[in-house]
């Protein structure tokens, strides 16, 4: 059992952590399993999908066709250096493009959400949920320290993970 204080891996049932002495009696991992799961696990365990990207000057028609052909809900918009500059999602199609349907040839950059919220592989799932709730997002780009996209996660990825996790917990108990 991992000590929440110093992360020492104690034998199950220990009353006190062998390394730092912190009481483990009142720390009940099974009682807060959801909290444990989403706080301990990082985005990396979700195996973020490889992002589909498009440059901002590409026509919005191309963006919509790409999303449709690949059955995805969003594209990451990157500049010619590969840096993330925006995100174009189904919601942008509905909210920004649907009233301008004649503008199929216009650049997707005019319909994207720029400077999107991003997360990194090391961030916790809890933080990703907070970010989604904060912005009302269903997708979050995963970037490296240079703001280059390395993947994308969706709220569905998190739901899928939690379903698997709960099944594991039921089996274990």
């Amino acid at each position: 059992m991992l000590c929440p204080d110093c992360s020492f891996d104690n034998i199950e049932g220990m009353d006190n952590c062998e390394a730092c002495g912190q009481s483990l009696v009142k720390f009940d991992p099974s009682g807060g399993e959801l909290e444990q799961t989403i706080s301990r696990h990082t985005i990396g365990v979700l195996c973020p999908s490889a992002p589909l990207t498009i440059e901002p000057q590409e026509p919005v028609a191309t963006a919509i066709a790409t999303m449709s052909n690949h059955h995805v809900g969003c594209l990451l918009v990157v500049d010619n250096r590969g840096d993330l500059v925006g995100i174009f999602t189904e919601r942008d199609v509905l909210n920004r493009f649907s009233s301008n349907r004649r503008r199929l040839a216009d650049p997707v950059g005019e319909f994207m959400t720029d400077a999107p919220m991003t997360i990194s592989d090391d961030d916790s799932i809890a933080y990703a949920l907070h970010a989604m709730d904060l912005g009302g997002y269903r997708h979050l780009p995963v970037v490296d320290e240079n703001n280059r996209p390395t993947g994308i996660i969706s709220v569905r990825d998190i739901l899928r993970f939690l379903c698997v996790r709960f099944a594991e917990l039921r089996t274990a108990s």
Partner: protein
Amino acid sequence: MTTELPVLTAKDFASDQELRWCPRCGDYSILAQFKKMLPTLGIPQENFVVVSGIGCSSRFPYYVDTYGFHSIHGRAPAIASGIKGVRPDLQVWVITGDGDGLSIGGNHLMHAIRRNINLKIILFNNQIYGLTKGQYSPTSPIGKRTKSTPLGSIDNPLSPLSVAIGSEASFVARSVDVDTKHLTAILHRAAHHEGTAFIEVYQDCNVFNSGAFYYASKKGVKEENVVYLEHGKPLIFGANRDKGIRVNEGNRPEVVELGSGISEDDLLFHDEKADEPSLAFLLARMRHPEFPEPVGVFRSVERPVYDLALDAQVNEAIAEQGPGDLETLFSSGDTWTVE
């Protein structure tokens, strides 16, 4: 007859209270280093007091087996000052956060520091209000989107160290929650300082503000973004220790590459004992990404200690006028009876 004092260990300072921090919270690391440091001070366990305000940081006293107060929002420095005033023999630690200490508690913090009361203040800076689920704080950067700043913060953030130095702090330091050896060393130095010791700790809130300090904590990244301060030594950083900080002709710091005509002698040398706080302030203003951020002891100077001076005044007054009686004091002067 002499009584041998027990040799304390970190385990002696572990409490039996239920831990309520989120898993992977940076507070755990700070707690662990704190408990490791306390036994090394040679102070009896009952002579420690930990006083906190309100916030995630402020759950700290529950998890340390010492005397403690989980007090009211922002007032820990005031309560701690009172403790030191009547019991100067106790070692008193104040645990606060960027919200508790710099928002509602800014005033108390400033006065405790400027008085140089012998308190050890640790400010857990996670740039967010964590306990209340993610509102921006006085240290949140401009543009930070949170529950209370959906369009991005338009507040200019405070620098805790700038506030401390501006309040005439005699000991100012910064460390990072996961830099355990460094943090322990800084806590140790603070414990031994005579007067107010102020430590800012970069602390990761992995639920509401994850990654705020990755640049200063992640191995392979922090080497280019952090410069370790050592008294009397030049400011050198970088994975290959090939970069330094010097002050240019405009009296502004600049990052330079060593070699090509620039040697270590051209760099800024740290002086934590400097009488004037200007150097410490200059270092405190160096912010990522423009500069590597300094960690370590920015300033450590001697100043009269308030609680000792207070104690001396009280003793002098007692010597001249006798011990005094509270009941007599209450009934003296202009009094009246309400019937």
